[in-house]
């Protein structure tokens, strides 16, 4: 049989082996290359992440421990200059600082002279005296007695202990002079100076003094803000998605709504902040800087995310399940509540948590509604003025004191921790609600 008698396929079959072999090498090479690209991009991504986390951790870790000094304090009514210990207003103006100074003077009896005294007094944080006030108010029976108590050291001492101040540098270039360092050394020697876990960071609100500044205010503020956001945006978003997907007629009007929801998802968040300022604060006169308003603004921002993800979760429910329910005589509402909603729930929850995580990290719109103010008090209700974690980070990153650099990174670590917890929670919920068919 000659080649002319063969048809195209038969001719091809004769050379099939060698042609495929030639092609095979290329195909494998291509596949290998493709995999290599993937691995390279993952490595690049991971190394950026590692760099980011590395810098944040090294910068922020020191904020989780703090330096404390042990002093023997005498709660002396005369020193305080208070006539009536039960009078709140007198207590507020009492000379609490004198207790600290007195204790320091007793510990270092040799120090004399105004300047030396001032340097001695600056070992202890200027706000430590309020800890004494709180303690005596909690335990009035301590009046007149003496006790040993750990008080927070000044942020410069803290920096020295964290090796942020170089004690070998020439004295003129140091924030602490030789005399102060000698005082610190004698305290270290006698075990009266230690570094401990910095609970203040988690129990205090913001402060001008870095050693006293904590993120509790921002954490509670974030919690209230997210609570308001969740309580509003989940039910509204899910009902909107259900209505649009299951009940709304498909016409021009619903089409416009659909397009606009997608558009809203792309609106820069600061625009929602301006809207919140104009509507919630200026028209409805809701309190400025309050988590309610923050929550309302973030609700507007998260709604499109929740609606879009809920709709795709609803769409993914197989039509055969709907038909089965309707075929048995279930009403549309029963079909949705009994079958569609449970099956769509994992997707809806995932979308909601992604929206919430976005809201947790959102800064710009909250600046617009005044959550950027300096607020030292920890908010008690969603109506109290407050700030939130990302805004706190923004505020601290702007401050010149060295200790605030660490605090900024510390706050970022806390924020990242919360984000990780939320994502884990999303995974957990998905597992729990997932049903197979």
């Amino acid at each position, binding site marked *: 049989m000659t080649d002319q008698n063969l048809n195209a396929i038969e001719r091809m079959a004769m050379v099939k082996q060698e042609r495929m072999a030639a092609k095979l090498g290329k195909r494998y090479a291509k596949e290998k290359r493709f995999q290599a690209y993937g691995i390279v991009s993952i490595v690049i991504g991971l190394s950026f992440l590692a760099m980011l986390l590395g810098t944040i951790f090294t910068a922020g870790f020191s904020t989780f421990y703090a330096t404390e000094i042990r002093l023997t304090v005498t709660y002396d009514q005369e020193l305080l200059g208070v006539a009536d210990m039960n009078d709140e207003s007198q207590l507020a103006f009492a000379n609490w600082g004198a207790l600290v100074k007195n204790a320091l003077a007793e510990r270092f009896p040799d120090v004399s002279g105004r300047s030396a005294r001032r340097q001695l007094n600056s070992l202890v944080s200027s706000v430590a005296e309020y800890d004494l006030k709180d303690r005596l108010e909690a335990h009035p029976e301590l009046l007149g007695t003496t006790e040993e108590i750990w008080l927070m050291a000044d942020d410069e001492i803290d920096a020295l202990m964290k090796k942020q101040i170089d004690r070998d540098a020439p004295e003129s270039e140091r924030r602490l002079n030789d005399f102060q360092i000698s005082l610190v050394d004698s305290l270290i020697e006698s075990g009266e100076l230690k570094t401990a876990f910095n609970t203040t960071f988690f129990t205090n609100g913001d402060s001008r003094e870095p050693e006293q500044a904590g993120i509790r205010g921002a954490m509670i503020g974030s919690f209230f803000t997210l609570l308001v956001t969740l309580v509003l945006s989940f039910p509204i978003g899910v009902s909107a998605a259900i209505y649009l997907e299951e009940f709304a*007629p*498909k016409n021009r009007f619903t089409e416009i709504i659909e397009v606009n929801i997608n558009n809203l998802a792309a609106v820069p968040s600061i625009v929602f902040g301006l809207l919140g300022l104009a509507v919630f604060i200026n028209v409805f006169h809701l309190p400025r800087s309050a988590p309610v308003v923050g929550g309302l603004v973030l609700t507007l921002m998260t709604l499109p995310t929740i609606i879009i993800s809920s709709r795709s979760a609803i769409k993914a429910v*197989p039509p*055969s*399940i*709907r*038909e*089965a*329910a*309707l*075929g*048995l*005589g*279930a*009403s549309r509402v*029963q079909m949705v509540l*009994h*079958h569609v909603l449970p*099956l769509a729930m994992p997707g809806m929850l995932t979308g909601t948590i992604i929206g919430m995580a976005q809201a947790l990290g959102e800064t710009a719109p909250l600046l617009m509604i005044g959550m950027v103010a300096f607020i030292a008090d920890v908010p008690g209700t969603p109506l109290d003025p407050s700030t939130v974690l990302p805004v706190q980070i923004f505020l601290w990153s702007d401050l010149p004191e060295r200790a605030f650099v660490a605090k900024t990174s510390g706050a970022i670590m806390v924020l990242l921790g919360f984000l990780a917890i939320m994502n884990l929670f999303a995974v957990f919920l998905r597992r729990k609600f997932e*049903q*197979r*068919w």
Partner: protein
Amino acid sequence: MNTSVKDTMESTFAGWTETVGNAMLEGEARMSTRNTDVFYGDKQAIFGVDLDIGKNEVLAMIGPSGCGKSTFLRTLNRMNDTIDICKIKGEILLDGENIYDKNMDVVSLRARVGMVFQKPNPFPKSIYDNVAYGPRIHGLVSRRAELDEVVETALRKASIWDEVKDRLDQPATGLSGGQQQRLCIARTIAVSPEVILMDEPCSALDPIATARIEELIAELSENYTIAIVTHSMQQAARVSTRTAYFHLGRLIEVGSTDKIFTAPDHKLTEDYITGRFG
């Protein structure tokens, strides 16, 4: 399709006037359609069908793919309501009442006219909950013991009880395809419908599962009216008492199953059952 058949079709359709055979019954019919047209948007899928379904009969609907069997079946319990573009004209009566009447409640209609779908579609819930769902939503039982009894009876009637009685609380999606389909039949029976519509209920099943479902249909026909769409002529011959042949949206011929499969009157029916096209 070869040209000669196409010619036959076209010439037949040009002169098409009415259905051959006994589409309308002498006695009382459970369901009847009168001059029913169905449209998907502008496209007409069913053309003026008049057909009665008698009490306790098994009516088989056969015809080439795309001729409108499913469409017609779905109009009988208003499942087509879920398709926005679907419009229905004419009358469809259940025990003399027009089911497309404004006063007809579609929920109670579907409780009276149940449906079994082509692909088994159990809910992703337990076997028990699948069967109990209908009675529960319609409030048919008041006590748990009563519900247990209903579930057991339905599963027994669908001849799947022995296979599942020890695993009622396990997910129905873990059953085999044939078991799932029998479960779906049990689920439909559990609301005690008067009519059961089945759209190719065995198309996803192997011959053994198919045989069981066919037996089941024969048993069910003692108490229920059944309309079944099938592509298997043998199946139609085995389970049905009457057969309706559809072609391009028209009801061509209706007659007793024996007659349709042995001596059809219409040329198109004959061509189809002898396998000359379709």
